[in-house]
């Protein structure tokens, strides 16, 4: 790898770094990372996403960048751009696999080493925001990201949960992780917050109700907002379509915008 003398070299022109975390799997970290990135891009920002979920990298599919070769330049790896204007950049292990269906069966130390490279050796260039999507848990990947970002200013972490106690139970542990590693908590997002039946408009709380806001109160963290269950959002991320562009009238879009605004405000207030 082409390591710069200063380990913040490749992050020198990245204005803000935000981690997206959850103790719990399947709550929508990658979905939120993708939608936030798209919302920020629509607001004219230059955004990068670093996907450090090595076992289950979802971001390439969500941004419809599929199979791509990753090239080297003097400063390291060139990220994959989703568009010709280079307004949204991405690095994921998904691009380094010969076959996208290949399992990455690595123990912790090997994951730690690659994440170190991902943090230091991607030539992001100038970015307003670098969002870091993580797998669930409080283990090798999370420690690797935090340790490798030590020399760079990290604005903080967004924690994602669903309303259920089983989810908030795990996210409480992630909050402890943040406190122990000195990561500022930008706020909590409650995803899968109710489902409005498209036929009769009845709202069903499939994954319970209220847990996210309670967790925010309990931990003294800002509550950033709720995102409802929305098959159109699920389909958009499945098919790598820009939900923000396709469904700007939807309640879901409103919810995401509100959260993006809250994140920007929290960062500005720091």
């Amino acid at each position, binding site marked *: 790898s082409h390591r710069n003398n200063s380990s913040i070299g490749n992050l020198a022109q990245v204005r803000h770094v935000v981690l997206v975390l959850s103790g719990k*799997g399947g709550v929508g970290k990658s979905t939120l990372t993708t939608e936030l990135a798209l919302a920020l891009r629509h607001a004219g920002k230059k955004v990068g996403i670093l996907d450090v979920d090595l076992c289950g990298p979802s971001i390439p599919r969500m941004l419809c960048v599929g199979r791509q070769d990753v090239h080297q330049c003097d400063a390291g790896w060139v990220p994959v751009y989703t568009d010709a204007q280079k307004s949204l950049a991405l690095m994921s292990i998904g691009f380094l696999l010969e076959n996208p269906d290949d399992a990455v069966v690595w123990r912790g130390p090997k994951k730690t080493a690659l994440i170190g490279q991902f943090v230091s050796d991607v030539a992001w260039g100038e970015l307003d925001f670098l969002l870091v999507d993580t*797998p669930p848990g409080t283990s090798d990947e999370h420690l690797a990201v935090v340790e490798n970002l030590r020399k760079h200013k990290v604005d903080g972490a967004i924690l994602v949960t669903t309303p259920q106690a089983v989810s908030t139970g795990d996210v409480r542990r*992630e909050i402890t992780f943040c406190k122990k590693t000195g990561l500022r908590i930008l706020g909590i997002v409650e995803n899968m917050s109710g489902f409005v039946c498209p036929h009769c408009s009845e709202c069903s709380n499939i994954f319970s109700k209220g847990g996210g806001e309670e967790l925010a109160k309990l931990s003294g963290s800002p509550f950033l907002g709720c995102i409802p*269950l929305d098959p159109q959002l699920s389909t958009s991320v*499945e098919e790598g379509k820009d939900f923000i562009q396709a469904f700007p009238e939807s309640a879901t879009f409103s919810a995401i915008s509100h959260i993006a605004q809250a994140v920007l405000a929290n960062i500005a207030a720091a």
Partner: protein
Amino acid sequence: MADVPSDAPEHCPGTSSVEAGKTSACQGCPNQRICASGAARTPDPAIEEIKQKMASVKHKILVLSGKGGVGKSTFSAQLVYGLASDTSTEVALLDVDICGPSIPKMMGLEGEQVVDYSLCSLFQYVEDNLAVMSIGFLLSSPDDAVIWRGPKKNGMIKQFLRDVDWGELDYLIVDTPPGTSDEHLSVVQYLSGAGVDGAIIITTPQELSLQDVRKEIGFCRKVKLPIIGVVENMSGFVCPKCKNTSQIFPPTTGGAEKMCSDMQLPLLGQVPLDPRIGKSCDEGRSFLSLEAESPAAAAFSSIIQSEFMCNQTVL
């Protein structure tokens, strides 16, 4: 030699790792030469010890998914509730999700007092014939985080399997975290002597789940772990008011049915979304018993009956 010796540096890959002695963290470690020569990587004696301990366990089944949040723990919980409903069947549920142990809450055992921090007190009983083991029982506060790297998690899993008196069991169900990493490799490795009947793989209908689940299937095939079959969870939602079905997690690429057909695997069943499932899990109660009349409970029961109970009745 211990998997992570006491004189090893912070990022020690573990003496039984293929990277032993070769990573940058190994520079300067007193054990580096031994590890690099491969001498430390003899078969772990724990494998044989675990084989002995497990001689009285008739069936060992892993519940896996490449993807998080698809319902592995939920399924594991219903499976053991179902199996243990026959009081002559001895069942244990081992939770190896060390960072996110959900099982104590789902089994109504959250807040159980751990008496003496010995491994035996990690065994908590839901019923006389249904025992649960989870690191969750060692955590004194719901805010306690287990911030461990791979080698330490592996060590815990080895202790769970080797140092516990499992006794006479008909079924040992092992619930896992998502992924294909330390926990999965360790469980498979440490049970390689004792033998695992197979794995049940959980998915939701979305391609985003299936793409991770295909990797898990690849992992199973690579480590020669037989696959019992696939369960598709969150398979549609019936509105309680108007009874119309919505596909909240749409099967844009054919769902588990197509994947199973493509990969020649049995589709064990499809379980619909039901708010009462999450509620039961949050309350630590058996959804299978509480809502026996519901379509979701019927789906769970049908899977359990056809795969495990043969001619016996579940409920």
